């Protein structure tokens, strides 16, 4: 039997949901216009007044916000509540420039915890579960987000944070953790370590994993499910909108339900900004309609994906987003072709290699080069150089089929590529150094 945390919202009729969104959007636009000068200026410049937004059909009239706006407005420019009403901040990892800081009132935290509680419930979690949180704690939203949701559901919460993998596994065994929450790359590493310690999934009690904060593939999901003996659920979110829990997966595992009572999604053409019809691939845009302190309207996530209102077997009516194909930031353009690290990962797992790899892109004589270091598979090790080179060529051929360009594959020693305990860094783009 499918369980819901907020059945009245999660299974609400489309008409009622739209009515709820309409009301919340109108109020939110007014709140933002009155309190956020930065966005008021953008609206004035576009000639849009709060009165012009009467329901969700008018959403497209509002200006977009992008990461650049968040940097411009750093740190307080998009704050919509006095600091005295705020109780917490979180921040992005800041790997691609200046950090983005997001503010939360207590209501914002409660809303966020509630969204994550829906995700944990959808993964089968109840107050009888032991939920081990191996996401990093701190400014990163992963640890705090799952921690809050787990408390709300009433799970026995184990706030491990990431790292110290042997101890992670010992705790899992000793306390009988049933749910594991972390990044998928860390889950894969934990799985690998479990086997190295001579344990099998039967030595653990895990039944579900809630994994997110970085793009991962279906192949990686199956491999984690096998190595840890659990069902792996995807969770989506970003610091700009709150954190993990903006969308979550149900038992059907075919995309994530968006908590659209709090976040209205749109798909736009990333070039023109035009709204695309349901079912088309484009950039995901979110409008927060309940957040108080840091309410972003039409925030461009740079994530490319598809939305679907197809009926879901879980009974939820919340709109679904497909697993993002990758953040447009992660997309590499190599010799004019769009390449996502997730495509490389798919090939590696299909061919029986570990999903640990490093992609190096460079430019030599005005032509892009793509080098991929892959850990060799000890099962396939041969004493003949020619056999090993055949493996490199076979991998390069399979990748060429997937991405359309020919990479150079380099086999390296098993376990020689650094394992990630948080978000994995897989791409080194040396072209940027030359620009």
């Amino acid at each position, binding site marked *: 039997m499918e369980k819901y945390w907020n059945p009245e919202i999660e299974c609400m009729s489309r008409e009622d949901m739209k009515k709820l969104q309409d009301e919340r959007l109108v109020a939110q636009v007014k709140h933002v216009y009155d309190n956020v000068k930065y966005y008021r200026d953008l609206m004035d410049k576009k000639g849009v007044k709060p009165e012009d937004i009467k329901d969700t059909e008018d959403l497209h009239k509002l200006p977009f916000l992008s990461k650049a706006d968040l940097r411009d407005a750093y740190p307080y420019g998009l704050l919509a509540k006095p600091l005295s009403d705020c109780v917490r901040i979180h921040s992005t990892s800041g790997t691609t420039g200046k950090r983005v800081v997001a503010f939360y009132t207590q209501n914002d935290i409660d809303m966020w915890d509630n969204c994550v509680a829906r995700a944990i419930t959808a993964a089968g979690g109840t107050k009888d579960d032991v939920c081990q949180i191996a996401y990093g704690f701190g400014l990163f939203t992963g640890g705090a987000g799952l921690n809050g949701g787990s408390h709300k559901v009433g799970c026995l919460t184990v706030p491990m944070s990431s790292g110290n993998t042997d101890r992670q596994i010992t705790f899992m065994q000793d306390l009988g953790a049933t749910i594991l929450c972390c990044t998928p790359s860390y889950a894969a590493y934990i799985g690998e370590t479990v086997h190295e310690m001579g344990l099998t999934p039967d030595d653990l009690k895990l039944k579900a994993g809630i994994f997110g904060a970085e793009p991962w593939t279906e192949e990686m999901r199956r491999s984690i499910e096998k190595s840890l003996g659990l069902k792996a659920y995807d969770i989506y979110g970003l610091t700009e909108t709150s954190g993990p829990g903006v969308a979550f997966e149900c038992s059907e595992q075919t995309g994530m339900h968006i908590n659209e009572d709090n976040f209205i999604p749109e798909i736009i053409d990333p070039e023109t900004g035009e709204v695309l019809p349901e079912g088309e691939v484009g950039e995901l845009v979110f409008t927060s309609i309940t957040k108080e302190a840091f309410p972003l309207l039409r925030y461009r996530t740079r994530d490319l994906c598809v939305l679907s209102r197809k009926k879901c077997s879980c009974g939820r009516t919340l709109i679904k987003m497909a697993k993002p194909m990758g953040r447009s930031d992660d997309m590499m353009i190599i010799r004019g072709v769009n390449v996502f690290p997730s495509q490389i990962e798919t090939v590696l797992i299909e061919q029986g290699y570990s999903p640990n790899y490093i992609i190096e892109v460079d430019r030599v004589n005005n032509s892009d080069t793509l080098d991929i270091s892959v850990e060799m598979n000890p099962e396939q090790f041969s004493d003949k150089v020619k056999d090993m080179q055949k493996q490199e060529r076979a991998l390069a051929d399979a990748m060429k089929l997937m991405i359309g360009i020919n990479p150079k594959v380099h086999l390296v*020693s098993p376990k020689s590529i650094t394992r990630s305990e948080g978000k994995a860094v897989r791409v080194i783009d040396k072209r940027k150094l030359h620009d």
Partner: protein
Amino acid sequence: MANVKQISVFVDNKPNQAAGAMRVIKENGINLRALSLADTADFGIVRFIANDTDKTVDILKAAGYAVNVTEVVAISIPDTPGQLSRVLDALGNDNVNVEYMYSFLGTSDRAVSFVIRVDDNAHASDVLTKNGIIQLTENDIAEM
């Protein structure tokens, strides 16, 4: 049939990689009889014959190395001009394809020893016997 077990280890083509594997071997008091290193731009394959194959494989695997064991043919021939050519002619005439080979020192200064890697050991062994070429057993090598 007198096949000899050869151990191969995968090493990255970076400083100190082969040294790491050798350190593990040294620390466990294992003696190597023969060794060769094949290298490509990306990686190397260290191949060798040790005085205790099983133990060597276990310790290298425990240290995280990719290891494989293959049977090879080892021969001992007089240290005079034309001897190696005679061996290779014999093998070639009977369609034995040599993947790679390397020489190693024995105890006699009048003979040299070779490890020869072929696909069909039994066939190669027959050809060598037919041509009167001395093959070494694991015991022979261990006693060197």
